[in-house]
């Protein structure tokens, strides 16, 4: 696993390495060439998908790898988005890198505090606790309107990338569909590689051990609570990065992205793509984004469509898209 794109994809079990590399190279080429073959609208849509993919990977760090289902990730996403907006509004800085630093920091701090409280519990209590704590963030954003703009939100203007090294952008749409897309792609790749390395590390293995058998993990000397907390903080940090990337795309930081159903959407993406694999959440996020855009565009009852998809998914395809793909793959190769 040398190239970042290859690392980001992971291998489906049983695939010959050469085929896997070819497959990944194809996807990488597609991603890099996308703005030239698709419309601006499509490219911006994919940008959204990649941003959500970072958040979904972060959610899965906790869900798939540590066995903790968080229904409160909206707070890390939203707080970072608002952080970017605050940096513009109060510090008058529009550097994207400043946004990212702020987002990373906010994700780290909030996740450290919330995580310290939450990792003492598992399963249902953990999930409800994450939900309740994230709602604190939402209610503050909603009510302290003189700071946060309330339901109107705060504007996030076009940021300056890499200190303006490529010159000032002229048209906003062109900017978003081109330069900003590549920026997002780059950050996504870096985040995906980092998270891949984390789950492949001894620490990542210990998380899976804790997920599978907490008592056994403890009995070989793993400090369970500390490992969970660490995973929680990492997850919050990456989700914060996603929130920062999202803000300029949306142009606005609003309370919706702190509201708990958005946490549900992040979980939806992760589960739909398949939370038992590394690349599942990426596929789920991109697919969910397209599905939602399609649904919203076609019918006002898009929540019904998404809800039915989700219910069917849970009943019939609990391993998500990647799970079904792997099973299909195994059957056609007739593995021994």
């Amino acid at each position, binding site marked *: 696993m040398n190239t970042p794109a290859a690392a980001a994809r992971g291998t489906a079990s049983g695939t010959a390495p050469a085929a896997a590399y070819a497959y990944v190279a194809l996807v990488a080429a597609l991603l890099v060439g996308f703005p030239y073959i698709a419309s601006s609208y499509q490219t911006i849509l994919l940008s959204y998908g990649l941003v959500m993919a970072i958040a979904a990977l972060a959610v899965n760090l906790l*869900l798939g790898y540590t066995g903790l*289902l968080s*229904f409160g990730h909206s707070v890390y996403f939203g707080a970072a988005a608002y952080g970017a907006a605050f940096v513009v509004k109060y510090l008058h800085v529009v550097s994207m890198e400043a946004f990212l630093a702020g987002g990373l920091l906010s994700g780290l701090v909030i996740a450290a505090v919330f995580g310290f*409280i939450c990792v*003492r*519990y598992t*399963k*249902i*209590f953990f*999930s*409800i*606790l994450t*939900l*309740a*704590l994230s*709602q*604190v963030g939402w*209610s*503050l954003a*909603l*009510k*302290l309107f003189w700071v946060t703009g309330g339901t109107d939100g705060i504007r996030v203007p076009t940021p300056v990338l890499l200190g303006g090294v490529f010159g000032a952008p002229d048209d906003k749409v062109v900017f978003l569909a081109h330069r900003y897309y590549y920026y997002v792609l780059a950050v996504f790749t870096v985040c995906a590689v980092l998270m891949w390395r984390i789950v492949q590390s001894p620490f990542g293995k210990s998380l899976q051990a804790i997920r599978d058998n907490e008592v056994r993990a403890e009995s070989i000397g793993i400090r369970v609570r500390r490992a969970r907390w660490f995973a929680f903080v990492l997850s919050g940090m990456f989700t914060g990065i996603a929130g920062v990337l999202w803000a300029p795309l949306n142009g606005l930081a609003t309370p919706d992205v702190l*509201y*708990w*159903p958005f946490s*549900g959407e992040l*979980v*939806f993406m992760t*589960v739909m793509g398949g939370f038992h694999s590394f690349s599942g959440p990426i596929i789920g996020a991109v697919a969910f984004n397209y599905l939602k855009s399609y649904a919203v565009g076609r019918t*006002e*009852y*898009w*929540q*019904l469509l*998404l*809800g*039915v*998809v*989700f*219910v069917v*998914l*849970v*009943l019939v395809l*609990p391993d998500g898209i990647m799970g079904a793909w792997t099973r299909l793959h195994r059957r056609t190769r007739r593995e021994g």
Partner: protein
Amino acid sequence: MSTLIVQSLNALLNTAFLFLIAGGLSLVYGVMRIVNLAHGNLYMLGAFAMVGMAGLAAPAVPAAALIALLPVAALVVALVGAAIEPALLRPLYARAEEYQLLMTFGLLLILEDVTKLVWGPTPLSASTLWSAFGTLTILGSDYPTYNLLVIAIGLMTAALLWAFVYRTRFGVMLRATSQNRRMAQALGINVQSVYVLAFAIGCLMAGLAGAVIVPIQGAVLGMGVDALVLAFVVVVIGGLGSLEGALAGAFIVAVVRTLAITFFPELELAVLYLIAALVLVTRPAGLFSRS
């Protein structure tokens, strides 16, 4: 002085309402160990069912008589619940707990749009029912009679439920199943029917909460999602699975809300969520739980 009486009565009103909605959630968890994220939208379904039926019946009957529709709306939601449990929840009992959260989240989305499909996207009101009852003078203050009726309904439901769970044969089966499902099965209890019924009762309470609140504040899309987190706060404070806890939790939350709205409205919600988090951290079983 008059505001004190009005505020106290408001707190009681909120207690009744919160008990109805949180009690159902707690009951379902207590018996089936299921946390129903769609519970809030079942409450919303009750609200819209009530307002829809009231709208249809209004030309034919005097406004006050519409109150008879309250149990009908609750029943509608109970029937929906009785259909949901065997079809969508039963297949998940063998699986990890997290799947029920996922499934009920999907249900939440479905119910949100089904409600929009049936009753339209605009908020609906049944305030004629509310105003038809006029006001009563309590200790020198005027207070809407309908609100007092709601308080009475809440108390009555609490009493009926208590009697049902602790005095009837079915209640015994309910408690046995909630304590030890396998043993209950071994004793010949039909756990499947206990589950359906428990879920239906939980939905009945949610539907009743919605029906009862609609003359006061109307029915609007999204009210379910808002109410759910509040119900969680109540149930977390009082203890998941405990009816007395739901009542006590409802009272505490109602009082905090009433105080907060008067003194620091911006932090009202934040304070509640923090209290919930605090309780989860110090006494995860809730303040009043039995275990």
